[in-house]
């Protein structure tokens, strides 16, 4: 079981709990604003872009090259950016705080 905190673009805090699947799916199932997950998690749409809070970044593991390539041209990306469809829910990410990124 992992507790995951989302901070929306309007600075609302949403705390969710999950055991499996992707962080994107959890967010979409619970209607977290700004996480649309248009492509269903195949890494093609970037509508699941989050910034991982300082201190939690290592918990999510490394992004694949396909994911970093997607983020490379994103105007709102920084070194803490992830596409959260690529973060699997497990105990390892318990307590993580994710800021929903801006988008066009």
């Amino acid at each position, binding site marked *: 079981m992992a507790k995951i905190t989302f901070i929306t673009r309007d600075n609302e805090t949403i705390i969710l709990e999950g055991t499996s699947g992707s962080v994107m799916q959890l967010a979409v199932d619970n209607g977290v604003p700004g996480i649309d997950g248009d*492509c*269903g998690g195949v*890494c093609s749409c970037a509508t699941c872009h989050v910034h991982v809070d300082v201190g939690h970044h290592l918990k999510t593991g490394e992004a*694949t090259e396909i994911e970093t*390539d*997607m983020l490379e*041209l994103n105007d709102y990306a920084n070194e803490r950016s992830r596409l959260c469809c690529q973060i699997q829910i497990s105990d390892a990410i318990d307590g993580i705080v994710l800021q929903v990124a801006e988008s*066009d």
Partner: protein
Amino acid sequence: MKKSELPDPFETARTTKGYGEMDDQNDPVTMILGLKDVRKCAHNWKTFTSQSAPGRIVIPSEVNIRDTRQIPFEMDPPAHKAYRAIVEPWFKRPLEADYSVELSKQINTIVDEALAKNAVEIVEGFALKLQSRALTLLLNTPYEEAETWISWGTHVFRSEGNPLDGDKATILYDYIDKNITRAMENPNGDLYSMLLEATIDGQKLTREEIKGVVVLTFSGGRDTIINAVTNAIAYFGEHPESLARLKNEPEIVNNAVEELIRYFSPLTQMGRVVTEDTEVCEHAVKANSRISLCWASANRDERTFENPNEVVLDRKLNPHVGFGFGHHNCLGATHARQIMTILVKTLAEKVKSIDILDYKDNIEDLGEFKRKVGYDKLTVKFN
């Protein structure tokens, strides 16, 4: 070659030089072929603009047959953003439960009709109907309107033997004009009515702008959806094992839909106009010339996609650009994904196999490349 195969004509050019060249009505195009280059150019709107003469970024160019700017498609940031924001929530409606229930009913009906027949011509007799009926949901107009659109035939701008048919365009424009007037007198919650209400910085949209959004909705979602649906039927015709697999593993339907979109790339390319002398793939391109973002080639880029020429139904990482890339990504993508998802599920549930009885490929002539994008005709029997 298998009947349902869509070969990749760009491979050699993509791997050796990264670009291709084609003429289009004396307005030549440098086609960008690699996935990363396509993304970079799509992102760089300052150098590669969408906001040129109306119709010029479309290939084949439509400058000679229309003056209406399609919105938000033929605009650059920052103005693009405000227009996109108006239409975006409307084009996300396919995610609402009522919408997918209705769409599901429509698709079930059309599949049942096809099952009851000995032979169905898919392009006109299935895909066009499906696309037109589904469009009534996207516009939130009465279901009966679909009959009018079906009567226009498969292409809004194209008719057999004439790639740019001005007369067809007039039919569409007159139709839209009439409907804007109707919605002004009688707003009823359809797309026209929503657009008439919308404001940007307190200003209502002009009639021409409203027309621009509606024309985009009609033309952007017509050939593309028809190609995607028809190609899917042909693919399942030759791959009954895939139908069986999707029936047993419904959890891979999302991956399968994304993969079919990648493989089919229903829209081959989209143009941009170069604003300053520059280089792409170490090739000089001049200001006021055109480049194209060749989605179909990028989607077969072997540097990103393993086995790019195979349909891998459960492909997990699939950063395709079948719906474009960046701020101009396909506005109708949510609608299209919903159609394809429901179609794939319905076929998997109801259809055991599909026999391809007859077909004629639709091959695009793109200068040095010939690309099969779909079918002019595809006659099948559903079992």
